[in-house]
């Protein structure tokens, strides 16, 4: 479809930061992009490189492309490499750090404010003497060789060294700032947890990630955009949909080039974007919605698909249009209510302005008729529901438009609503076969040899998926007599 190997201007890209966070950025030519504490860069300097390229921020918003694997990763790997010799080391430290982090996370803004206050104090008071520094060092020294004397001071230490780092940042903004800061941390904490090599490395990695001035430019694939939304936006707006649930939906629904899919997408267009990638410009997606206008913000804003492409592949329609006879819609719809197609010779007679107006109206009008005809003829290659509407009522209305033996895939944030749907299918005889509810969750591991374990905390939620097949039930089954009726009931209850 399009060349996605090189960084191009006027496109949105994902900037991956050393903090493991990321940012969406539009590459307007000649502009400077700010990465906050990681510095700024000039857009022109990154154009033409391949996606996946690592850059280092230098002075004056200049960047330097970096060869080889990303610098953040190198550090994590170096820990991995040393894992084997550390048999005797203490594990406790690690857990302490993780739990402190958790605590900090929970304390959230409160602590952030406190830190800010301390920082302000430090900056404002001009008579800040070296005595304070000595205090800091003394406190750090308490983390001496034997961690059986370790005082639970972790958070305080971090706070204090942050202050120092802020000061250093002020001192110099050379391209080497990040590196210097990290070296300085290493030197200053030389005595800190001598025995807990692993903790030390982990601590340094965090610091390094935080203060190094590297970034990576990635193409915003549907997958990347989904993860960006999960990590950075209010996931309730995308119905709490996890990457693994999305992946499962796409495969179960047999999404592929040339397919025609009927969907509801309340994930801000993330589902539609994922489907478009899998369809590669062939086939069509009809998005039915409870509103006149479907919210596909994520797709429309960040996907780099031009509007004309999206309009070709994605047709939107509201439920009223979907269920009404075509004539009713044409009579009532805003776009067509006052429009009557004219014979060609009459069109030719129109003035230039009037003709342009007519052509536009005609285009809207014929688009709408096309969508309506598509919907009325039905035989879609799959039904995917990602909606907060009451599913049984939606299913009843849409199932008739789905082709035989095609997949019906329904996502919900809540298992209870899918269970309810199952019973509705059985009770209301909705022709869907074998509907079961599935939950699929990816569990991450700390992939450090010698220290492998599932991560201690992870995101909850992620949703549930119901999968069934659209079928045609025999009408005559009902009338085969008592013995058969029993069998028939059995079959009815088995889906």
């Amino acid at each position: 479809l399009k060349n996605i190997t090189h960084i191009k201007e006027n496109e949105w890209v994902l900037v991956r930061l050393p903090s493991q966070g990321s940012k969406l950025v539009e590459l307007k030519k000649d502009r400077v992009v700010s990465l906050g504490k990681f510095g700024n860069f000039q857009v022109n300097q990154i154009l033409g490189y391949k996606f996946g390229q690592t850059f280092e921020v230098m002075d004056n918003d200049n960047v330097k492309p970096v060869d080889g694997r990303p610098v953040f990763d190198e550090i994590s790997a170096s820990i991995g490499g040393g894992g084997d010799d550390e048999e005797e080391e203490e594990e406790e430290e690690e857990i302490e750090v993780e739990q402190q982090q958790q605590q900090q996370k929970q304390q959230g803004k409160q602590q952030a404010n406190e830190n800010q206050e301390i920082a302000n104090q430090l900056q404002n008071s001009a008579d800040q003497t070296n005595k304070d520094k000595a205090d800091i060092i003394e406190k750090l020294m308490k983390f001496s060789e034997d961690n059986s004397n370790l005082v639970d001071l972790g958070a305080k230490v971090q706070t204090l060294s942050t202050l120092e780092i802020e000061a250093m940042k002020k001192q110099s903004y050379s391209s080497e700032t990040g590196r210097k800061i990290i070296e300085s941390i290493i030197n200053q904490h030389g005595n800190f947890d001598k025995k807990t090599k692993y903790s030390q490395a982990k601590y340094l990695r965090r610091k390094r990630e935080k203060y190094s001035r590297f970034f990576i430019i990635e193409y915003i694939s549907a997958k990347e955009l989904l993860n960006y939304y999960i990590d950075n936006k209010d996931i309730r707006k995308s119905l709490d949909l996890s990457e693994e649930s999305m992946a499962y939906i796409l495969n179960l629904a047999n999404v592929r080039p040339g397919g025609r899919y009927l969907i509801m997408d309340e994930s801000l267009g993330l589902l539609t974007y994922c489907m478009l990638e899998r369809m590669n410009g062939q086939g069509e997606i009809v998005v039915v919605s409870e509103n006149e206008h479907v919210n596909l913000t994520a797709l429309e804003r960040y996907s780099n698909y031009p509007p004309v492409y999206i309009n070709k592949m994605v047709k939107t329609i509201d439920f009223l249009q979907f269920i009404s006879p075509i004539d009713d819609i044409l009579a009532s719809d805003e776009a067509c209510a006052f429009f009557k197609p004219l014979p060609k010779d009459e069109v030719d007679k129109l003035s230039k302005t009037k003709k342009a107006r007519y052509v536009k109206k005609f285009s809207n009008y014929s688009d709408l008729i096309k969508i309506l005809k598509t919907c009325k003829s039905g035989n879609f290659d799959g039904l995917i529901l990602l909606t907060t509407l009451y599913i049984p009522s939606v299913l009843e209305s849409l199932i008739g438009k789905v082709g035989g033996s095609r997949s019906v895939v329904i996502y919900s944030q809540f298992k209870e609503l899918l269970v309810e749907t199952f019973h509705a299918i059985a009770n209301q005889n909705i022709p869907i076969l074998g509907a079961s509810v599935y939950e699929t969750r990816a569990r991450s591991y700390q992939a450090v040899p010698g220290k492998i374990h599932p991560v201690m905390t992870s995101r909850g939620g992620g949703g549930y998926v119901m999968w069934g097949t659209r079928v045609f039930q025999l009408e005559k089954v009902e009338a085969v007599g008592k013995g058969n009726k029993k069998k028939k009931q059995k079959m009815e209850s088995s889906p």
Partner: protein
Amino acid sequence: MSFKNYKDFIEEGDLVFAWISRGMIKPIHVDSTQCLNTRYGTFNHSSMVGQRYGSQIASKTGYGFIYLLHPTPELWTVSLPHRTQIVYSPDSSYITQKLNILPGSRVIEAGTGSGSFTHSLSRTISDTGKLFTYEFHEVRYQKALEEFQDHGLKNLQLTHRDVCKNGFEIEGEVINANAIFLDLPAPWSAIPNLDKVINKGMKTTICCFSPCIEQVEKTIHELHKQNWTSIETVEINHRKWESHKNMVRKLDDVIARLKDIQQRKREGVEKLRKARDERLNKRPAEEEMENDDGEKKVKTQNNYKKDVNVEKSQSFNPFGKGLRIKQGDPNFEWKNVSKDESEIKSHTSFLTFAFKLPEF
């Protein structure tokens, strides 16, 4: 062929998935001279021709029913006899997503195994992509070769090869893979062979699929050694839920039932007392004896219980005790509940992902 695009009507020679019951799907080739025997009866293939895909059809006797489904990679995976090496949909879908496999992708798969993931990959990469799949086990290779031809999977090339020893190169082909899936006992011994066949112009992704944690450890070491980055290990936890109805049995009914039992007992006791009084009046001596005679006493009790049993059928029975109640019977109140499988797949494999950056 049938796996590639949906068609609406069944024709002679088509591959059809006969849905016999939950968890029992049988792939058949429609051949009008044949019939399908199931526990729900016999179905002539000839009765399938001309039916819509998705149709329910009746057996020859009219008593049993099956559905005729269109092949899809996902149904194929479900229908596979429990052969070796099946990568199930929760894993395969996630791997496809994480490796960013899309139409046009050039993918390496080793080993082919049961071919379940191969079907899924072939679908996703579509005509514009290409899949190179390798199997070192002779019998599995032959089986897969047949199956792929039979299923019309044309965008792939199956090779009989030990990729650990002999690498991935194929004569006359520039593989240029941008996604790699290794389901091998020792993926680390195949990883060094990848550099020759990956597309160096773009980000390449890999997934190694290993059941044991020690394999993961070795894989991570080797990936790192071979300059793969952003190494991540995950496992997919998957559960399947079936829906049920659970009877609402409220305390009011419990108490009403207990009262009813009490009432019946009291009546029973009254009857017994009357009977005893009558006997006492007639034969007081015998009564005393009876009390010392354990066996007779038991007998009396049994008689009494029998009375109660007889009356049970007319007793207050709010929850249909002793009767066969169908789930959802409208004479009772029900709550919707869900239940996972009695035996769950608690582990398949660990998935280790990494990527390799394009050349500078």
